[in-house]
């Protein structure tokens, strides 16, 4: 359950996998993301729940992504996501624009073992117009009441970073409940954590309420500051200086390559 190395834990994420990751503020597995880039993972179908920032931009820039399913990619206060923007302008990745609650609902559909979930809104939006995989039906309980049905989304692997896991693979996720849905929906779930919790998270009534059971977890790897430079809830904040450096460098392909050399590939030598 507890992998010896990060690379061992990441083994389930193969080329062409549908990989689902949480939003930028809920525990993005950035050390793992850098390891995937070093390994040279290819043709990912990347699903973000529901948005992403540096994580998606890095994977796209490094050429790991074939299809992107997201409701937004941006560096937030640090500006647009440069490699995402460049890839979309160049048409080098297949884009599936979504909207936040649609991604939540599509993963909840898989969590619940149903083929689709309905969602209000969307009708008259070009988001819907560009999603032939979404359907509009007439609400059978209404009268001339069109409603959108969204197909269940079944990631091969969910990947995120959390504060602690115990030796049985139970992971404390706190109020980041979307991580529970993510793990329920994915075939396999890989988690990196700051440290191992010495005890049983499920036994403690306080901790149990915020715990993803190890039953759903394929592998856990210990990676201190594994969300860096993104924040980890209740542990550490965003590294603003680093994000600024990234935004500046990633503005050009050359700068992005330099960033990879400096912050991603450096570990190769180690």
């Amino acid at each position: 359950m507890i992998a010896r190395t990060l690379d061992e834990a990441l083994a389930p994420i193969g080329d062409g996998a549908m990989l689902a990751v949480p939003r930028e503020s809920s525990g993005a597995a950035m050390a793992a993301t850098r390891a995937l880039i070093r390994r040279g993972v290819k043709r990912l179908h990347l699903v973000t729940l529901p948005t992403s920032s540096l994580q998606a931009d890095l994977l796209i820039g490094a050429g790991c992504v074939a299809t992107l399913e997201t409701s937004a990619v941006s560096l937030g206060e640090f500006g647009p996501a440069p490699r995402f923007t460049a890839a979309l302008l160049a048409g080098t990745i297949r884009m599936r624009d979504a909207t936040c609650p649609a991604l939540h609902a599509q993963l909840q559909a898989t969590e619940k073992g149903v083929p689709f979930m309905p969602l209000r809104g969307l009708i008259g939006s070009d988001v819907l117009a560009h999603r032939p995989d979404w359907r509009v039906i007439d609400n059978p309980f209404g009268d001339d009441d069109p409603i959108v049905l969204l197909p269940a989304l079944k990631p091969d692997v969910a990947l995120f970073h959390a504060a602690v896991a115990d030796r049985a693979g139970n992971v404390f996720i706190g109020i980041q409940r979307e991580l529970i849905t993510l793990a329920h929906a994915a075939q396999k779930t890989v988690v990196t954590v700051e440290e191992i919790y010495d005890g049983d998270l499920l036994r403690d009534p306080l901790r149990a309420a915020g715990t993803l059971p190890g039953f759903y977890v394929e592998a856990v790897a210990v990676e201190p500051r594994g969300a860096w430079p993104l924040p980890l809830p209740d542990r550490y904040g965003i590294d603003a200086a680093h994000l600024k450096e990234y935004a500046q460098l990633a503005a050009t392909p050359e700068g992005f390559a330099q960033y990879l050399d400096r912050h991603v590939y450096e570990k190769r030598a180690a």
Partner: protein
Amino acid sequence: MSEPDFRDEELLADVICRLIGEVRHVAVGAQSPIPATAALLARERASLHNLRKPYVSLLGSRAHSFFTDGARELFDCAGQGRVDVFFLSGGQIDGDGNINLVSVGDYDHPKARFPGSFGSAYLYYVVPKVILFRLEHSRRTLVPKVDFISAPGGSPDNVYRSGGPIALVTNRCLFDFDHAKKRFRLASVHPGHTLAEVIDNTGFDFDRSADVPTTSAPSAETLRLLRSTVAPMVAEVYPEFAKRVFGVTVPIPSS
């Protein structure tokens, strides 16, 4: 009594705060520092005057959010009819209230690409008071017709819709949205700006009365609240913004 000095962001937060009005729950989404400032201002004002404080939830905040059911709770909450006010922006906004957070030009071969629609394609339909904000007021942003409708300003009668736009705030003026006419109406022009300038920089037609008032400036009390109480709260989620606008550098956890 001389008019206090204030920054554009302070004026806009004050304008938005008044648009919020007396409600139970104001939610603020991603990349919305001025709406976040306005929502917290609304709460602190109510608190100061012993009025019922609105619940405020700022996306990305630990201190100013009551959500415990994960990232989906904002959307579920709105679906339950429990979000009264939300804020949306757009790379383009048109005179029908349509917003575009996706791309300029052909979707498949865009000339410009924005981050994406976020929750707009849902929240615009189900939150009763959606306040549009777009600082850059130009013919590039306020267009006759958006290239991509992330979310439409209005819907046919048979489409389920309990929400929609009530106003558009820019760095030059405030527009109200007239639901009957499905058009914007110029409500006030911000101090230091002119009607001619607004007309010149707006790509869509809008209604206006013969005599358009000037947006009232924030009061001394409001500025004090903003700078002393609200700014440190905003710094938790928007440190860069708080530093630039208020000179606040250390987020102070609120109790």
